[in-house]
């Protein structure tokens, strides 16, 4: 069942263009020049119920603008958008009752009070009966393992703990869709991994549709079967996450370790040496040539071999740079 559908969705922002210096400021007082910036252009999108979709894009690509249009925070300039059968910017109560949004950089918790206090407010906002509230709260408190943190001041929580609480607050009313805008921003590897685990479970067990924007490709790769890449407001890829990374994964990094000092022969296969000591050689090679290189260097009798994929950041950089020619 289609839960989100957009067609030709466009959002333009008008911004004041000021010339430099005092003269520019005075000119701006008399005759103002504006420029139109297209944050999202002509975007067609369909998301099915229960999907876990990743929105990827560099800063200013339009990811957050898209989320804001889907949640009704801002109105589109043109095009159509339907979320759960509603036009989001009508901001109908029945619509808002069915989704949740978590913004990594904006907290919805009361910092001086406890999480339990904030949850009580949300219980009233969403009109949850006491029994449903308690059962939902207890489920998430157990899932996120935060039993000991419910009665401490929010301001004393670590970033990771606070994000778990933000998620509990967002999930309390069992929304059909949850929009997550950079939920792991600033979190360490352990906390990010935990959050990813919880999100996967919520998607699987509760069938909640999740739209995730993140700069951390580990999040997208680990969670989202489907990815949408946006750049300059346009969709440049929409499809399987594995395929996306496979396509832009162009090199393999191979590390050879030797028990005795070893010299490398002249390398073919477009290989590039990244690091070289008498006992260790790190070589980058196009993935299609990796097998050939391995075969050749096996003759040197290495004691250990590690084959690694390229760093995820490098792949993402390539996706943005190459723009997704022929991808969309």
């Amino acid at each position, binding site marked *: 069942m289609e839960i989100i559908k957009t067609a030709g969705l466009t959002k333009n922002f008008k911004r004041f263009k000021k010339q430099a210096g005092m003269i520019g400021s005075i000119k701006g007082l008399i005759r103002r020049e504006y420029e139109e910036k297209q944050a999202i252009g002509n975007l067609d999108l369909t998301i099915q119920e229960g999907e876990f979709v990743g929105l990827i894009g560099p800063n200013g690509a339009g990811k957050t603008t898209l989320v804001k249009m889907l949640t009704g925070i801002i109105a589109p300039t043109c095009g159509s958008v339907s979320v759960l059968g509603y036009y989001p910017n009508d901001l109908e109560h029945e619509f808002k009752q069915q989704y949740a949004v978590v913004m990594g950089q904006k907290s919805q918790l009361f910092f001086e009070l406890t999480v339990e206090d904030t949850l009580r407010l949300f219980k009233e*906002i969403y009109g949850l009966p006491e029994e449903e509230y308690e059962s939902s709260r207890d489920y998430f408190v157990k899932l996120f393992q935060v039993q000991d943190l419910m009665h401490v001041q929010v301001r004393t929580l670590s970033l990771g703990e606070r994000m778990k609480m933000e998620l509990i607050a967002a999930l309390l009313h069992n929304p059909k869709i949850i929009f997550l805008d950079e939920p792991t921003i600033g979190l360490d590897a352990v906390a990010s991994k935990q959050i990813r685990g919880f999100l996967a479970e919520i998607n699987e067990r509760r069938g909640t549709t999740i739209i995730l924007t993140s700069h951390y490709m580990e999040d997208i790769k680990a969670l989202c079967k489907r990815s949408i890449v946006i750049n300059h407001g346009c969709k440049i890829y929409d499809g399987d996450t594995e395929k996306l990374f496979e396509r832009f994964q162009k090199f393999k990094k191979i590390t050879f370790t030797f028990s005795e000092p070893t010299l490398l022969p002249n390398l073919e296969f477009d290989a590039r040496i990244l690091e070289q000591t008498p006992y260790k050689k790190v070589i980058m090679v196009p993935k299609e040539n990796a097998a050939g290189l391995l075969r050749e260097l096996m003759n040197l009798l290495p004691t250990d071999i590690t084959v690694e994929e390229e760093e995820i950041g490098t792949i993402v950089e390539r996706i943005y740079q190459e723009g997704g020619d022929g991808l969309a």
Partner: protein
Amino acid sequence: MRGRIKRNLRMVRVLINLRLQNLMMFRLGFFGPFFVDSCVFLVQLCVFEVIYSNVDRIGTWGKGQMILYIGTFSMINAINMVIYFFGINGIPDKIKNGDMDLYLTKPGSPLLRLTFERINPGSVPLLFLSGVIISYGIKEGGIKITPILVLGYVFWVAVMAVLYYLVEVLIRSFTFFILTSGNTIILEEAGLTLCMQLPGIVFYGVYKVIFYVILPYGIMATIPVQFLTGELTLSGALWGILVAAAFTILTAFVWKQGIRHYNSASS
């Protein structure tokens, strides 16, 4: 409809509850405003004392009516300070910083939440002090109190407190359209300061248009006092209701349009 009202009332109760708990986390933050607001109030009283020790009448009003006027304006202002001022005053910043996002994505009215989320118990003493001034004015003016008179006066104070609220919301809603609405707020403050000291009956011509129609602070305390002293005419009463109704429609319209116009802030 009834369910929605019930839910809103429950939400208001929780908001007030949370605000009080929040304030009680800091002892100085909780008790400090009681002292500060009372001092500010006493300073204002001193100003009035200085003015009215030099003049006997302002317009057609004598000392008793003027004391009533000061008490009534203080009462409306105290209601404003206790219930909604601090919540409403934060609207421009929330629009500029994009913090309205979290209000718009939650069920229920964002304005209701903004209105009641920052109540200020520190101003409660002002309500009592204003009550004392009003009682003194009634005594000084030789007004014979009847239940109808009290009910009518309470009604007009309530209507004018709502009007005060509407004007505040309206002015702050301009930030949805023009981010630098600070100058409008300065105008509001100047008008308020003037009308706190001068009753609406002294305004004529263009000043009357300004303070009876555009920034209706001129009628806010004047109409309740006129009712109490038996000076309120039918046309005056109708004008009060008309202005309150017009501002209700205008504020609701501007607020709704403002939300549609809201562009959030870049993250």
